[in-house]
């Protein structure tokens, strides 16, 4: 099995420095990673650990100060708008806050149409586009007829996040980066969102990268886990290794500090 795994996204020495001179802050500090195709990866870190900056670099929204990212074994080239567009056909994202993820002036149709156009469906007849959009909506348990001509802010947070998944369903990227996709929605809707993401992954075989602070979520969903602290990966490995048998002090502390229900939660460690 292990030798069959193909590298999907990898990087070495990725660094991001903000500011210059004395105000210089190193947000991401020489991180190395190898994400394999079809894997579910979690990058876990507390706020300020640089995980969102890393996510933006993976997405190509900001450039790295140092280090190269390799996509499917080749050095990633996003030097022009055209090359970026090409790259973004392969990597997409779901953001934390569904309420700020949509342009409030665009209707839901235009959000979904954008995705069809991006997949080269600009010239399709409108009926075919509607069919595609309905299919995507029904995948996430929404009804396209009810959504058409509505604005995203008329939906609930959970519905908006599902619409985001419908977008991914249409785009079928090779990699999906989910930046805290469930932290702003209720626990009950969380399961729905996670189920849909898993189902989508099973259907498309895409690589799923979760960026999260919730170590429970990371354990629940992922194959491999990267623990991030102050811009560095302190520990990585399979979920069972990292979370059930942590080696690093920081990981141990992080896991210790999360409330447990099956075992006794040791409060004496703080």
């Amino acid at each position: 099995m292990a030798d069959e795994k193909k590298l999907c996204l990898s990087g070495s020495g990725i660094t991001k420095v903000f500011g210059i001179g004395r105000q210089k802050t190193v947000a991401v500090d020489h991180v190395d990673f190898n994400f394999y195709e079809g894997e579910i990866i979690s990058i876990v870190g507390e706020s300020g650990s640089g995980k969102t900056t890393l996510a933006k670099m993976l997405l190509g929204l900001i450039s790295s100060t140092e280090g190269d990212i390799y996509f499917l074994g080749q050095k990633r080239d996003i030097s022009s708008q055209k090359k970026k567009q090409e790259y973004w056909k392969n990597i997409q994202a779901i953001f934390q806050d569904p309420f700020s993820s949509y342009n409030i002036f665009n209707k839901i149709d235009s959000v979904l149409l954008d995705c069809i156009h991006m997949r080269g469906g600009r010239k399709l007849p409108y009926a075919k586009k509607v069919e595609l959009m309905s299919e995507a909506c029904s995948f996430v348990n929404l009804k396209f007829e009810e959504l058409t001509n509505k604005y995203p802010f008329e939906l609930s947070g959970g519905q908006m996040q599902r619409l985001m998944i419908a977008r991914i369903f249409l785009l079928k990227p090779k990699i999906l980066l989910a930046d805290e996709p469930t932290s702003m929605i209720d626990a009950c809707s969380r399961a729905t969102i996670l189920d849909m993401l898993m189902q989508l992954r099973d259907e498309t075989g895409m690589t799923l990268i979760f960026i999260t602070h919730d170590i429970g979520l990371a354990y629940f969903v992922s194959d491999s886990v990267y623990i991030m602290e102050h811009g560095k990966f302190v520990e990585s490995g399979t979920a069972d290794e990292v979370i059930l048998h942590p080696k690093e002090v920081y990981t141990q502390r992080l896991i210790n500090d999360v409330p447990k229900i099956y075992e006794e939660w040791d409060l004496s460690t703080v």
Partner: protein
Amino acid sequence: MKHIIRQVFHSGKFVVGFCIFVTILLVVIIYPLFITDSPLAILGQGTFFPPGIYVSTFDSINSPTTYTLDLNDAAAVRIANKLSSDDRLAIKDWLLVAGIPEDQIDITDTKKLLDQWSSNYDPKKNIPGMTNAKRNYFVRLDNSLKGLLSAEGAIIATKNPETGILEQTGIVNQSDYVNINQVASVRWLPLGTDNFGRDVLNELVKATVVSLQIGFVAGIIATLIGLTLGLLAGYIGGIADDVIMFITNLFTVIPSFVLLILISFSIGQEQRGAFTIAVVIGFTSWVWTARAVRSQVVSLRNRDHVNLSKLSGHSIVHIILTDILPYIASYVIMALILQISSGILAEAGLSILGLGPRTTDVPTLGLMMNWAMIYQAQILGKWWAYFPVLLTIALITFSMNLMNTGLDQVFNPALRD
């Protein structure tokens, strides 16, 4: 969009401001359709004719029909018009000096008063402490009172062109009237004339149009510059941001009005048309718009919907137009309104200093103020020359600020109640 407009018109402040502004606009649009006189045409020989209806005396005399009206109070009104209560008190003063006991003087009894006056007045007589001006006043008063009580009409005489002798051609009785509608030449000057003898109302309407144009041109130029620079600095960031903000900060620390004065002065009186002034105002007042737009764009740039738009493969132009501009549109419109009203004020300020547009083309509100000030209308009490102008400026800026506050209430959730 519809929803937003409906919300805007639910704001009381906006509606009041909008109504005032639209009324002003309608007046300045409709008025010139009916009154087509040149606003700078000089009508009056003299300065500051008071507001009123001006009837041609010549045409009244030569009116095709005259009417005889027996009005009881006609004489009283005529006398009152010539002999004011101040005049009566002055007469009383003279009579007292002339030695008539006070209890015999009744200033309400016009006939007795005039009798006493004609028998006692002596232009050569000198009252102790009487100034020259006072003496002249009494002479004038005496002349004007002559024939005041006579019931005789006035004789109209024309000169015979051959003999050069005056021949009586008609008589105007005291009970003769003409209908003002039948008089050939009547001119209503609702706001009188200014120092050059020009119709103030006509001038004011034209000046309002020009000032609004100046405001709009200045406001649009300032907003466009500010918007463009703000968008570039905010969205592109990096060195572009640093350079643009450096220039903006330079302009911020130089008071823009001083800059305005210097530029206007260096252009020279002859080159300063209304449009030039508008452009100069526009180019000196974009700073705050640029700063405000930049800070808004910086916070918008990092929002997820912009990231999502990027991931959807949209170009920078598309992102700026659809994901950034609509979010700051309300803000920019508010800035535009403020820029327009401050443009109008800036023009008025410049003109009052004599640095406004050249005076030969068109009037502006500022120029009208300038003229009124130079000819001391405010000292002479000729309110019609400056007060309507002030009121117009105040109403325009007030209505615009009101609209701005109204919009602010709609678009700024923190101010919503």
